[in-house]
């Protein structure tokens, strides 16, 4: 309204992205400004491609809405996104799923298909299978600290829409003679995706394996630049010069990632990181999950950031199928006394989401699940991994394990364990018009689209990519999700907003 008075010449338009919200319009109406907008439109963004094999809705509140507030609107949009996908890439003949939300999305897809019979198209299906997974089938994985290169960048600095902002000191260009007085103060912004060759090579590796790749790369690039001394003929020099931009790009890419790796190494070699990781791994391998943990208590006493504490206690709770009432009360009391009583509201949310709750059945299912699905692998090889557990240096993400077993040998072999995980599991088939039924050639991979309802981590993405490039894997994976998350952003979305709303 103020703005309007100031500049009566201005037209105001409002563009709702990704979709208009009646709630929003209602509020605008109440404020008396709804009519001031000349255009009220929505720009529908359902699934946004983040990379060649990655799609995200970037719906931050999807998990909270679905699991805390029983509002499944974001699932409706996920279904719509999938319909669009099918319109472009062909009907997906097989749908598998695990979880309440998965079931809901599948039902909506089938219904939407029925209601728009004209959408039957004649495109050869690109995807053989769709796997819908509820985030709450695997609450453990996002809580653990990711150990892939990209995962660590996200954990420490936070990747937003493929961009990361880094402390600028290590990126200042080294100029001879300048005493560093012109150090940049703006954080360094870098884009991270597979268009960058080096990044594509190292992003999904365990961080401990990145160093050797970088040093090998450094040698190759140095050698390439040395070539200029060997170039004798005009032809050779010309060839060298034509390669120059590519080599320069490679060198700058190497410089950037060497700096990033150094920044990360400072953190991963710190005592605190090591202590934190040790406790995480103890929990994940089933050690002492039923007692109050000393390290957690120490961290609370030293008033470490609350989200770190919450991640750890939730991890313990999930690895114990819920905490004993005494242990839970003890943690809650310490947290409330140290960080403030108002956090009762957040703790309540975490309980509702199943992350931090009392053990109800008196039974701890986690060891059975862990053993049957081989979630903890002692003999992990970080340099040359042979199993997806390398992404957490020992823990195989439950969600990815389920995808892996679905492809081979199929879920029938893990019926018992599946029943221990929340939500129904199901299979649906969608009719393909005759003539479009694909017969896979020998050696040709199936393509599976894995849709994580509630969020996915970069480590899980790395694990799926690992499966894709396995020699005799047989399946290639494309990943879709409601949001790219890490433990911190995920827990944050579940925390109660403690400042009063601005209006």
């Amino acid at each position, binding site marked *: 309204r103020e703005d309007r008075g100031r500049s009566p010449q201005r037209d105001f338009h409002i563009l709702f992205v990704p979709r208009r919200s009646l709630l929003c319009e209602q509020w605008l109406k109440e404020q008396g400004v709804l009519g001031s907008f*000349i255009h009220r439109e929505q720009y529908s963004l359902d699934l946004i491609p983040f990379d060649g094999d990655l799609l995200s809705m970037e719906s931050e509140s999807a998990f909270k809405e679905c699991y805390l507030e029983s509002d499944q*609107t974001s699932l409706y949009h996920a279904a719509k996104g999938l319909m669009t996908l099918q319109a472009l890439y062909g009907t997906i003949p097989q749908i598998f799923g695990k979880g309440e939300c998965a079931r809901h999305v599948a039902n909506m897809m089938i219904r939407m298909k029925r209601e728009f019979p004209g959408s039957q198209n004649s495109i050869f299906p690109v995807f053989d299978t769709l796997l819908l997974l509820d985030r709450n089938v695997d609450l453990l994985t996002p809580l653990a600290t990711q150990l892939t290169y990209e995962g660590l960048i996200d954990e420490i600095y936070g990747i937003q829409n493929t961009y990361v902002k880094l402390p600028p000191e290590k990126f200042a260009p080294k100029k001879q003679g300048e005493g560093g007085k012109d150090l940049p103060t703006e954080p360094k912004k870098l884009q991270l995706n597979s268009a960058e060759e080096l990044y594509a090579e190292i992003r999904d590796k365990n961080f401990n394996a990145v160093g050797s790749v970088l040093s090998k790369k450094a040698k190759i690039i140095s050698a390439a630049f040395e070539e200029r001394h060997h170039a004798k003929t005009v032809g050779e020099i010309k060839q060298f010069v034509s390669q120059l931009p590519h080599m320069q790009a490679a060198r700058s890419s190497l410089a950037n990632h060497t700096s990033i790796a150094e920044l990360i190494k400072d953190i991963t070699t710190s005592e605190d990181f090591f202590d934190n990781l040790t406790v995480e791994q103890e929990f994940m391998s089933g050690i002492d999950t039923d007692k109050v943990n000393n390290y957690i208590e120490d961290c609370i006493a030293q008033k470490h950031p609350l989200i770190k504490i919450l991640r750890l206690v939730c991890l313990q709770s999930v690895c114990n199928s819920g905490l004993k009432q005494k242990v839970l009360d003890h943690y809650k009391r310490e947290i409330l006394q140290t960080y403030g009583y108002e956090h009762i509201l957040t703790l309540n949310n975490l309980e509702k989401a199943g992350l931090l709750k009392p053990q109800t059945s008196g039974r701890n299912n986690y060891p059975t699940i862990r053993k049957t699905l081989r979630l903890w692998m002692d003999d992990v090889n970080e340099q040359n991994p042979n199993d997806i557990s390398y992404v957490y240096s020992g823990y195989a993400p439950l969600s990815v394990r389920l995808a892996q077993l679905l492809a081979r040998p199929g879920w029938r072999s893990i019926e018992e364990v599946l029943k221990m995980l929340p939500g129904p599991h199901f299979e649906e088939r969608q009719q393909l018009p005759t003539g479009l039924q694909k017969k896979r050639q020998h050696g040709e991979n199936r393509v599976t689209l894995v849709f994580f309802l509630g969020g996915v981590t970069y480590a899980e993405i790395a694990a799926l990519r690992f499966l894709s490039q396995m020699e005799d894997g047989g399946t290639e994976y494309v990943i879709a999700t409601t949001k790219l998350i890490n433990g911190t952003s995920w827990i944050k979305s579940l925390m109660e907003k403690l400042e009063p709303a601005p209006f």
Partner: protein
Amino acid sequence: AFTFDDEDDELSQLKESKRAVNSLRDIVDDDDDDLERVSWSGEPVGSISWSIKETASSSTSLLEGRDSSLQKGSSSYAALPKQVSSYSLSSLFKGRNKLPSFQCLSDALSDTGVKNYAPELRRPKAEYKDYSSDWSPKDTVRRMQRGKVCSLERFRSLQDKLVLLDEAVAGHDGNVITAVLIFLKRTLRREILFRELEVRQVALCHLIHFLKETGEQKLLLDLLRFLDRTEEVALSQYREHLNIQDVEKRREFLKGCIGLPFSAEDTSHIQDHYTLLERQIIIEANDRHLETTGQSEIFRKYPRKASILNMPLVTTLFYSCFYHYTEAEGTFSSPTNLKKTFKIPDKQYVLTALAARAKLRAWDDVDALFTTKNWLGYTKKKAPIGFHRVVEILQRNNAPVQVLQEYVRLVEDVETQLNLATKYKCHDVVIETYRDLKDRIQLTAYKCKVERGSAEEEKINSILNN
């Protein structure tokens, strides 16, 4: 139907009839996209050729005197001063997309001046408002899902409304469900609404979410109470305290929360929250007074950086150990009083007191924390936390080496002890430990870590030579 131009000075005598004709719009089924409106000159209204003709022949006039009843979707435009050309392509597309609202028109009225207008290529009205009376609940929901604004007013009977709601829920689009709920909330008696929602879980969840977002606290609480979701009522009400800035009012509010149906554990936390704030108010008033009058030395030396109000319990304890350490248990601000009132465990208490006294460099107080007299009268040092933690905290506060050393000596695990001693340069401890371990090699190696000619070096030498 015909439209009249808005040039009042030419047609002012026809205002009445103009209004009458234009209001015919309400009666006519305007939803028919096929009907084209044609102007006097025979061009379809809204077409480019028509707009060119109109602007060419118009004189300056404004949209004065139009009241809201006329503006429903009619294409209005302001004629231009003759000098300005309106035939440029861009001008044909500039202009306003009329929405049937009064505010919009008033904007048009106020926004006079040189503005390129042409009646833009108007979108079919069907896009914006639904005037038909015939859409079934199912179809209404469909249209809403596609973003069309529908009037729900004609769903008068309870039956109709419920069918509409069920259709909306079946359609899964949250926006539509919310829209229907807003309508029902407005047009149904509360008891009926609650009763019907009780058996419609999805719609219920949407309404609760909506009430939370819009801050309609009272209605939300009534609903939750009706559903017997007592704990949620309690938590929801408690949440409101965050909106109260004034401490006294907040304190009162928290007091009121105590009787609410929280779970047993949570009840004690809420009670503590109230008690804590109550204490903090007293302490704050008192300390502010001490500060301003300059009576107390400690406040002079270490002026407070922030008020203690609304701080967590442990922070309050630290504050109390810092500024009020020596006070007797009877006062509200004494640490021992806090410990007792809130049942703070020994571990937490000792850690906090240690941190506070170490910051003040009150090493004697630190000493006293760990000294206990046993029944024989001998003093002994023990701690509910490992002594390595004590050392860490002391070191962080730059305790002198002599003090550090004393506590390093008390660390039980030899390896940790050695590590800490080496790290913090507690030479005597290192030397003594190596001596006790009879480790000549390490002892000799350690010589290079001490200053030449220092007492430590001598000590090493004398041990080695024996």
